[in-house]
Every structure is written in structure tokens, then in C-alpha cells.
């Protein structure tokens, strides 16, 4: 079943010096359980395409379908609902809320989705156990290492059991060993049934994906299948 599909999408940013085409006429389909890696040089449009797939940004032209819904026809409430319940985000800089503990960060999307507290607490514990951070539940982000913060971010992204997990350079700020642990964890998430699209500069990390899409100048220049 198709989770997200881009059909001939482009994204043009108006700039003072003239419009910049970040993504040019890209078509891409991500099915349930897929593991896709987006690679390519800096500025080739990887992150912009990821944001389009995540309903964070809208295409200038072309059509984007999320679970067969044309995203362009959806309002802020519906797009926010998709981001809350159907998509998880993991970023290079973690983006945890510093005033909340690890458990509270994980519980935030659950609370927003209206999950009752007992169920929320159980799910939060389950997720922290899943990412190996049960002992750090009450720690604030400032008390966690980079790898631990990224684990919390992954747990938060998985809170509402999303169909699609989008990760933008999730190992970019981590040392190699920690990065491999995160890559391992993301592989496990995908193996458990969540479609995964990652943006990475790390070839070794990209090789873990079933499909590696290499972008250049806003277009998908090459596609490589590993399994």
C-alpha cells in the first residue's frame, strides 16, 4: 500500500536574486515498509523533498498524495493531523523541548493526539524501553548525550505509531559509533513495519536502505536497489 507519492513535484523558492528551484519535477512513491535513502551533495534538494513528503512544505507544482489524499487540498488542521498521527520526524539537531524530560518529550504527541494518560504513560515507557532509555526517562535533554537525545527524538517520532518516519541527517551530529547505533535502531523501526525515508551523506548508512536515490540539481539522478 502506498504511503506517500509525489507526482512531478517541484519546489521553487523565490529569492531576491531570482527564483531557486530546489526540487524539479520529481516523482517518487514510498510504500508501506519501504526503506528509502536520499543521497547527494549539499543543496541538491534532499531535505526539501523530505519536507514535501512530510507535508511540512507544499510543492510549487505537481501533486503529492499522502495515503491517497491530495495534500494540496488539505488545510492546516488536516496537514497537522497527518504530521501528528501518520508521520514521524527525526532531525539532525534532535529538536527536543529543553524544558521537558525525555518521557515528557515522548508523551507530547500522544497527549496532543488525545491519548488517555494511563495509555500514554504505558506507551511512553514502551517506547523508551524500545530505544533503550528507560533509565533516563526523567532526564532533561541537557542531561543526555547526543545519541541519547536522538533516541528520545526517535521515540517521540514513533509515539503515535506513524506509517512513515522521515529522518533528516539523523546521524549528522553524532560520532561514528553512536551514529551506527542510531542507524541500527532506525533499521529496527523499519523492520517493525514503519516506512522510512532518510536523508544522509553517509554511504554506509545509505546502504542499509532498500532503495538509494541519488539527487542532483533537484532531480533524482540515480536509483539503486539493495534488496
Amino acid at each position: 500500500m502506498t504511503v506517500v507519492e509525489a507526482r512531478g513535484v517541484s519546489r521553487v523558492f523565490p529569492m531576491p536574486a531570482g527564483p531557486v528551484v530546489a526540487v524539479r519535477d520529481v516523482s517518487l512513491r514510498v510504500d508501506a515498509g519501504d526503506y528509502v535513502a536520499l543521497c547527494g551533495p549539499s543543496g541538491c534538494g534532499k531535505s526539501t523533498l523530505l519536507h514535501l513528503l512530510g507535508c511540512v512544505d507544499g510543492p510549487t507544482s505537481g501533486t503529492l498524495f499522502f495515503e491517497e489524499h491530495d495534500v494540496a487540498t488539505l488545510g492546516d488542521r488536516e496537514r497537522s493531523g497527518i504530521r501528528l498521527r501518520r508521520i514521524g520526524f527525526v532531525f539532525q539537531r534532535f529538536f527536543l523541548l529543553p524544558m521537558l524530560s525525555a518521557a515528557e518529550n515522548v508523551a507530547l504527541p500522544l497527549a496532543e493526539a488525545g491519548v488517555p494518560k494511563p495509555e500514554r504513560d504505558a506507551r511512553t515507557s514502551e517506547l523508551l524501553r524500545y530505544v533503550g532509555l528507560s533509565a533516563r526517562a526523567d532526564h532533561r535533554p541537557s542531561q543526555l548525550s547526543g545519541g541519547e537525545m536522538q533516541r528520545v527524538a526517535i521515540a517521540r517520532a514513533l509515539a503515535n505509531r506513524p506509517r512513515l518516519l522521515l529522518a533528516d541527517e539523523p546521524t549528522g551530529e553524532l560520532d561514528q559509533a553512536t551514529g551506527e547505533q542510531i542507524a541500527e535502531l532506525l533499521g529496527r523501526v523499519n523492520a517493525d513495519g514503519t516506512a522510512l525515508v532518510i536523508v544522509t551523506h553517509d554511504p554506509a548508512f545509505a546502504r542499509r536502505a532498500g532503495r538509494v536515490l541519488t539527487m542532483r540539481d533537484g532531480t533524482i539522478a540515480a536509483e539503486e536497489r539493495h534488496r
Partner: protein
Amino acid sequence: MRAPPPRVSCPVLLSAVALWCTLALAPAAAPGDGHPGVLLSRQLADAQGLSAGDVVRFSTADSGAGAVAFTVIGIYEPTPDPMQINASKFEARLHLPDLLAMTASPDDLLAAETVDQINVALHDPAGAIEFARHITTRVPGVQARAASSSNRGSVFVVLEQFHLAIAIVTIFASTVFLLALSVMLVDERRETVGVLRLIGLTSRRVLAQVFTEGLLIAVSGSLFGLVLALASESLINRYFQWHYDTALIFVEVTPAVAVQCLLIAVPLGVLASVAASWTLLRRQVLFLARR
């Protein structure tokens, strides 16, 4: 400034007509009965170390010649008058016959019958204008006017308008300052708002959160301001009452003033925080989460 009701420390009511004048104090005679009574202002009594029962001698001459002895039968607090805040408050109140006997010239047979000016205190000050009109029509040659109809009232109208203008400018400037401060504070939370939006909170949801926060802060700030004003009220009044030696009330935070402050401050506080947040929420989600 508001003048409180006059307080007289002696229960003796001299007469409905009270005359006052500034007199030279002569050395007191030996205590004795039979002297006419006099009321002294609290300031005069304090300055001269006098109290009820003391005997004082008043003279209309600087040299003290022809001094007449009076027994102090009470000390009173002069009616505070904002228009005479710097005037000397050394006053004495005598019975009219005593005053006339002391001031009238022996060569002028009508002197004891002549009064230039009298102040009349009414039980109901609201009827002053009607009373003045009544006297003027009934007693030819007498000009009567209510104190409230004098130019004192117009001075205070101008003063109140001046205060209103200052208040408007202050509130406007505070609002601009508050808005600028809110924009800075909200911008500091840009990343947090971006994360919340990325997670899936709608703009409306974030705005509602900001509204609630703004409301709490505005209410807390307003209440803090009121408490500060109430605390300052006492200090300011005490200082100026001491400085001018008066019972005038210079600052008073009435319930109406408090409610007015809350009605202005709370909506402005909420408006500033919501307006500042709205400028942020109009931006794209990705911009919010980027640095």
C-alpha cells in the same frame, strides 16, 4: 489629591460660623479660669508645644500690646486644601465676638458690627450652590458663592485632563514596549513553536496555548502592579503628608481605579502576546525550526 473630612480633636463646636485669622502669639499668661476659649490648628499647637487647657495670649500688634488671654479648648486638623498646600497652617479659631472685640478699632463705632468675609460649613456640602444663591437673593450687598464653584474646580479639571493625557501617552508607550518585548520573547521560543508545529500541533492550538500563557501573565502582572500601587500609595501619602504637613491624600487606589487598571492591562497584555505570536505563526513551519 483628595481632602478627607475635617477632624476636630475637641468635641466643642464653636459655632456654625467659624472665623480664622493668623495672629501673633504672645507669651502665655498664668493659667486661670474665665478666659474665652480658642481652637488651635494641630500644626500651630505642635510648633508651640501647646495642648488643651493651656492659656495663650493673642495680640493684633507685632509688639504684643493689648494681648488678650485665651484658654486652648481644643486642637483641630485644618481642612486640607490642595490649593493652599504651601500656605502656613498656623491657625486659630475664635468665637466671633472675641475676635471682633480684639480687632475692632475703638474709634470706629461700627467696627464691631463689620465682617468682611465668613466661611460657612454646611452639613450637606451638595447644597452649597443652592445655599449661596439663597443668601445672595435674600441679603442684598452680600456676595455668596460655593467653594466648589470657585476657580479651584476648574484648576482641578485641567489637572485631571492633564493626568488623563499622561495616562494615555503612558499606556500607549507601554503597549509599544510590551509588544516589542513580546516579539523578542516569542522569537526566543521560535524553535519550540517550530517543533510543536512539526509534531503536528495546529497554528490555532499553539495560539490558544500562547493566549492562555498571555492571559496568566497579564493577570499576574496586573495584580502585581496593583499590589505595588497599594504598597506605594501608603508610602507616597506618608511622605507628602510629612513634607507638606497636611492630611491631604495624594494617591488613592480605589476599587474603581483597580478595576479600570485590570480592564486595560489584561487585554493589552493578552493582545501583545497573541499579536507577537501571530507574526511567528504566519511563517512556515520549517523557518520556525531553523536557526
